[in-house]
Every structure is written in structure tokens, then in C-alpha cells.
């Protein structure tokens, strides 16, 4: 299975989990869209949560408006494939779930995938409408991981790439 279909399959899985029936009555429709079952699950039971000793890739950043914190660790083999990836952090459901989804999706990927990752891909992965004010939360994990990878590759992060605006 190539990497692309893998990501797509993951996304599909999320969509099937998001059935309206699974929400209690009286939950506003918009909230059903925003705080999906799957997002809350990633928040409550984050995948790839923790730290790694002897990491190759590492970065940490905060989102001062929310106080969200995300720290990424990853190990990379000779073929530049991620063999282990973990994150820690605290903050809002969107920032933490997004980071967890990202970590899960990047496991076993070539780090070039991370270099190529863009805002749209990240938002597609989260799969919910994100308001402008919450974009920083949604993109914090991606920003941190990119910074870590770029440092590992000895590259400078370009301004617009690390921007979460």
C-alpha cells in the first residue's frame, strides 16, 4: 500500500465514525461538525503521546494566545524514514488532537513528506471546519514538527511555511 492511500484510508475511517446519531440531543449542529467524535477521541486518548530518548528530530513551541504547548520527538533511519515519533503537550482539544493525528500519519513516512506537508493537507487530515481564530491551534503541531525536521536537515524554515496564520 502506498503512503497516499494510507492517509486517505485514515481519513475515511474518521468520516464514518462521525455519524450524527452518535451525538446526544441538544448538541448544536456546528459543534457536531467541530468537535467530532474522532477529534475528541484523539484528544482524550492521544496516539503517539510521550517522549523518546536519543531522538534525531526535536522541537517545541507554544501558542501564546491559547497557551497550547506541543513538543515533538522523532527517530529517523538512514533512508530518512521515521521509525518512531511521539509528542507531548497540553492545551486545547484541537491543538492536541491535531498533533496526535499528525504523529500517527507520519509514522513510517519519509521525512520529505513532512517537508512537503502544507496547511491544506493538515486541515484535511483534521477533517473539521476550523475558524480563523482557531487556525493557530490546528496548525501548531505541524509547525513544530516542520521546525524539528528542518533543523535535522540543516535547513532554515521559511517564514511563510512556519506561519500558522
Amino acid at each position, binding site marked *: 500500500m502506498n503512503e497516499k492511500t494510507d492517509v486517505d484510508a485514515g481519513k475515511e475511517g474518521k468520516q464514518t465514525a462521525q455519524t450524527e446519531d452518535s*451525538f*446526544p*440531543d*441538544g*448538541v*448544536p449542529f*456546528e*459543534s*457536531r461538525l*467541530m*468537535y467530532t467524535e474522532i477529534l*475528541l477521541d484523539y484528544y482524550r486518548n492521544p496516539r503517539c503521546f510521550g517522549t523518546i530518548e536519543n531522538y534525531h528530530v526535536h522541537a517545541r513551541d507554544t501558542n501564546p*494566545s*491559547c*497557551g497550547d504547548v506541543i513538543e515533538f520527538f522523532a527517530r529517523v533511519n538512514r533512508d530518512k524514514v521515521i521509525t518512531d515519533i511521539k509528542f507531548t503537550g*497540553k*492545551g*486545547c*482539544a*484541537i491543538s492536541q488532537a491535531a498533533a496526535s493525528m499528525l504523529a500517527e500519519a507520519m509514522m513510517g513516512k519519509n521525512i520529505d513528506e513532512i517537508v512537503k506537508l502544507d496547511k491544506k493537507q493538515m486541515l484535511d487530515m483534521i477533517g473539521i471546519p476550523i*475558524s480563523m481564530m*482557531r487556525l493557530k*491551534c490546528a496548525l501548531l503541531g505541524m509547525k513544530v514538527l516542520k521546525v524539528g525536521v528542518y533543523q535535522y536537515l540543516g535547513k532554515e524554515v521559511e517564514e511563510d511555511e512556519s506561519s500558522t496564520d
Partner: protein
Amino acid sequence: MATSKQSMKEDLMVSIQSDKGDGYLIIESKEVSPHKIERFCSAENTIAQSGKTSVSWINEHDRSIRFMPIKEAITADAQNKKKISSNSPFFTSTPQPESNLACFEAGVFLDAAEGSSGTFRHILVSDANLADRSIVTCGIGSDITLIIDQRSTADTAAKRNGYLEAKLDERSTLMIIELQRFNNKVLQSTTINAEVGKMAKLIHIVATIGGGESDSKNNFIITGHGGEVIQRHVTLSSGKEDHKTDTQIIHRSQCGKSDVAVRSVADGNSKIVSHSTVRIETSGQKSVSRVTDHSMMISPGARCESIPSMEILANDVQAGHSASTCQLDLENIFYLQSRGLDEAEAKKQIVTGFLKGIFDEENLPSSSGVVCINELIEDRFETLHHDPLTSGMNRGDFPILNQKINGKPLAYLDNAATTQKPKIVLDVMESYYLKDNANINRGVHTLGERATCQYESARKKVARFINAKPSEIVFVRNATEAINLIAYTLARQKMRVSDRILLTAMEHHSNIVPWQLACAETKAMIDVVDVTTDGQLDPESLRRGLAQSPKIFSFTHVSNVLGTINDAKELTRRGHQAGAIVVVDGAQSAPHMPVDVKDIDCDVFVFSGHKMLGPTGIGVLYMKQGLLNELLPFLGGGGMIKEVSFEKVSFKSGPERFEAGTPDIAGAVGLGAAIDYLETIGMENVKAHNDALLAYAWGKLSSIKQVKLYGPAELSIRAGAISFNLGDIHAHDVSSVLDEEGVEIRAGNHCAMPLMDRMGVASTCRASFHIYNSKRDIDQLIEALKKAIKVFRL
């Protein structure tokens, strides 16, 4: 070619000549005085539409107004750089291809063609003095509704004078709906003269809801066989209002009908007098007439007089009248209370039922205008008898609140971040820019003088507001800038290595970071007074901090997170005892409670305008006179110097020395208006309202088991801000769900990270109140929180 002539006043004749959409409106004056005509139709405000035709500008030479095709009118308009749009003060729901219509700011000329129909709304939006003159002619068989909409929320004094002439041709129907809703500084007089032709029907509906003084005269003459006049008039008055209505209906032709119903409700010390006279002349055989006039006084000081009268000269008529004045029936109120309504609601039901009753009759056509009246009555009743806690204080003054967020009514509960602005503040600022704008303390011209006066008058208002001298008030951008200014200048002049600065753990970043910068310059050190778990300053820690003999003691008057009110006077006394310069951050106190800097005795007090109903960009730094004169300027530039050469400079004394460059003059003027507004309400009342909301919200929030509340549980030492968390959910997530329900709160660290650390949380939700907030807003917050609990499965 249809021609109609109307006499507007004795010396002025208006005629409309029309021929299928191409018509002339001719105004003839006996005196040749263009001014007189311009008074009636100011060319600047000429907007008209009539299907194919539109109106052009007044012709100076023959003093006529010429209708012309719309396309041409727009071309003419583009040249004149004026706008014709659907927002024009006159809106017609159905264009009338064959009618002619001209609308001016001061009146309407409507010549409805034979068989045409439509609803026209004339919105008299101007808050200023207004004299409008309108003429309506209804062609044979036409059916016209004219809504004269004078609902105004403005608070300004004005004199209004309305005059309408109507002529109804055979079988035509004209419904005139007058919606009058003013503040008590408006004096209003209206006159309507109408001539009702054969089988024509005039329906006149008036709602006088509020206003200072009103005087309306209606003269309706039935000139054609079977002509009919229906009048419905409701008046609801309060305060010292004085309303007088005089209606006269003359039956001059056979088989005419007239039906008058008047209902008045007077509250407070107001007075309502209504005279309705029907005169049936000898030519008016077989006429039918009915007049009912009932009034209700709902307070001991109110007065109503209902005087219907009939003068019948014909001998074959059916006519009758009835009148009554009564007090509010207490038994009915008790009855409704026994059915579970509270007293205010019972009163409202009785009064609104009494007033609205006259619109329920079958012979009245339904119209949006009548629906408006019902709304007006209810709305007015709310403001008359409203409990500010239930519906908020002066909510109508804040247009921004009247909107929906995500389809839900807006409940704005982020007032500790910034408050909304009453319209009067915006009006004052607009007026400053439109009329008086110039730079201050520089030019010697008239505008310069006006601008300077206004700016200095704002300074005086601020001084009075906190009981200081105007010479002690420096205008800055906001409280943050004020603290930076004082920290920087003190660092430069007063601070030495190893000096101590005493802060508290409940400070906003703006009362931490400027001192850190000052320490970086001077190698001074910061000590922090700890906060107890219930959100108060720790007395032991305070004692230790003061024992270090700090050079500066800077603390917040009211915590923006916990809502704790610190005893500024006592803290200042102890600070002075320890030898410190005392700085008080009043950003959260000045907006919500009376502040007296002389009583507190602090050396410096700072606050922001935008948190107290004023504009953004203006803040206040109060410094005791002695300190102010001692400190060197913060910024250099124009406006703050006495003399400058390249060798030396001397500075002005007084607050100007800290106001380099052109200040935010309009902002200061706006802040002055906000202070006037708050003082009209009274800061004690502002505080009482906030306290009551706080108690209500605290009770409701503590009843939800998933809600964790922060800060003192002793509400008497709290001001109107409540921090809380919902289970383990991040405040931003809670806020996102609340926003979907129209509830706007602050979520995050509130620019107080050290305090958040001390409380052991990353963020909190915060609801904060101001005068316009109500129990309803809090109920909405509680409902939204319950939804959030469902969303997050707590």
C-alpha cells in the same frame, strides 16, 4: 392629464400635473423667495422613484420640480455625486408605473394613479429639527398605504413639525400609519388635513409612544357620498410627557361613516389629553358615527382627559360616543399573579391588551405597520417597567448588541477585555470630526480653539470622574502605555541598583513587563506578593514584601482574572508607610465602581477608555501634582515644549509635557462622552447592577457540578468578572462551543500567566459584565455551558 392642486400654506401652492409617468410638481409661491421653497424640498435630499419616472433637482428659475425617467435621474445624480439607492429614506414596495412620487428629507409628494396600489414607508431618520410637508393624492380606486416611520433611538433634543395633506378621490383607500417613538427631549407637532371623496376610505392609525411633548391636529372632511374615516390612536406616556390630540371629523356629504377609537395609557407624571369631535352638517344625512375614547392611568401622578363630542346638525343619523378614564385594576393584577405571572408581567399584559384591543377589529386591514405598533407598545413597556437585571440597562443605546451570532442573540460577556460603545459616544466623536476637528494648542483659528476646548473639557471630565485635578490627568493610549510611561520615567530618575519593586501575583502582564524592562535598565529587583488559594493577597507575603522597603509598590485595584477587589486605600497607606511610590492599575475598577484617587491617596492611577464604554486608543494616567512636575518627559516632540533650540530645550509644566505629538483628540472627546454617559447612570448604580449580575451568575454557575470557579467566594470583595473552567476541557474549546450559541466570553490566560501558574491552570473561561448585560445573557451562558457539557460528554 391629471392635475391636482394643494395648498400647503396660504402663501404656497403645490400642484402635481401628471400624464402617465411624466409629470411636473410645481410649487408656486406668492412671495418670490427661493429659500421658502428650498425649505420644503432641499435639492440635496431629493430622491424619488415612480416606476418609469424619477425626480430631478429643483429648478431655480421657475421653482418647479420636474419628474424625469429614472435613467436620466441617475445620470444627473452621478454628476452631482449623490446616491440613489434602496437605502433612501423613502422606500416603496411596489413601483407604481403610473404614479408620481417625490421624496425629500422633509416630505413626500405622492400622486397615486388611478387604480394603483402600494405601500410606501417614509422614514424620518433625522434626529435634528425637522419640518416635513407631505402631499398625497389618491386617484380613483387606488389603494395606498403610507407609513410615516419616526421611530428614533436618538437621545438628542429636537423639534419636529409634520404637515400632511391628503386628498382621496372616488373609491380610493388611503391608510396612514404614523409611528412616533421619541426620547423625552423631542417636541412634536403634527397636522393632517384630509378630504375624503365619494366611497373613499381613509384609515388613520397613530401610535404615540414616548416623546417629550406632542400636539397633533387632525381635520378630516368627508366630502363625497359614502366616504369613510377610521381612526385608531394609541398613546403610551411616562415621565413628564405631555400629549395632546385634537381630531375633528366633518361629515359634509350623505351616508358618510366615521369610526374613532382612542386608547391612552399614562404613567409617571405624564398627561394625555384627547379631544375627538364629530360634526355632522345638514348635508350629512344618513351618516353613521362612533367615537370611543378610553384612558388608563397607571400611576398616581398621571393625568388623562378624554373628551369626545358630537355636533349634529342633520336629523337622520346614527351617532354615539363613549369615554372613560380609569386606574389600573389591582384586582386584575392579583388575578394574573395568582395564575403565575409576576407583577410586572401582569401589568404589561393588562396595559398592552388595553392598547392593542383597538387593532383587533375586523374592519381594519392588516398591515405590517400595525404589527410594528404592537411591537412598539411592548418594547416601550419593557423600557418603562423593565427590571434592568432582566433586560439590561439602556440596551437600546448599544446598537451592536442588537444582532445575532451564529443565528443566536448576542450575549456579550467579554467586557473586561473591552466594552461596547453607546451610540452617543460615537455621535459625539463623529460630530467632533464633522464640525470641530483641528489640532490642539497650536493654531489660533476658530476650529483650533474649538478642538482645544473639547480636548481640555474631556480632561476636566476625567479629573472629576476620579476626583483629581485636570492638571494631574495625562492622556495616553491605554493603561498599558500609562504603566510603561511611569515605569520608564521612574527607572530613569528614581531607581537605583538593588532597589525593590513590589508587585502582586494577580497582575496583568501590563503591570509586570514594564517593571521587568525597568529592572533590566537599573538592576532593580522585583518582589511578588503571593495570592491565597481563594484569590486574595496573602497578608503575610504582603508584610514580607513591604518589609523590603520597596521603592515602588504597584498593584491592581481589581483583578482581571479573579475579580478580586483589593483595598487600594489600605494598600496605599501601607505602601507609603514603607516609603514606596504607589501605583494603582485601575483598568478593571474605573469602569465598574466609583473611584476617588484623593481618598485612595495613591501616587499614580491608570485606566483605559475602551473598557468603560469609551473608544479604543485613549487611556488615562493620573499622577499626583508633585510627582508629575518632578518627572522628565517620556516622549519628546511637539506640544510638550516651551522653547527649543539645538542647544537646549525647556518643557511645559503640567500634563502636556507627557503628551508629545498630536494626541488622540477625538478619542479624548469620546471618553469624555462615555464619562458623561456613565455619570448620568451613576457609578453607584453601575456597581450595583454589576454586583447583582455577579451574584446571579455565581449562583447559577456554582449549581453546575462540572464548573470550577476561581477567585473569592465572598462576593462583596469581587467586581463583575468570573473565571471558571468546565471539567478538564480547555477554555478555548469551551469558548468555541459557546460562540456557536451566541455567547461571547474570554478564554485563555487573560494576560496573567504568572497568576495562571499560581492557580495551576493553563487557561480559564471568563465572563465579565457591564450595564447592558442582563440575567438573560447569563441564562444564555448557562444554557450554552450545558450544551458544551453534552458536546464534550462531561
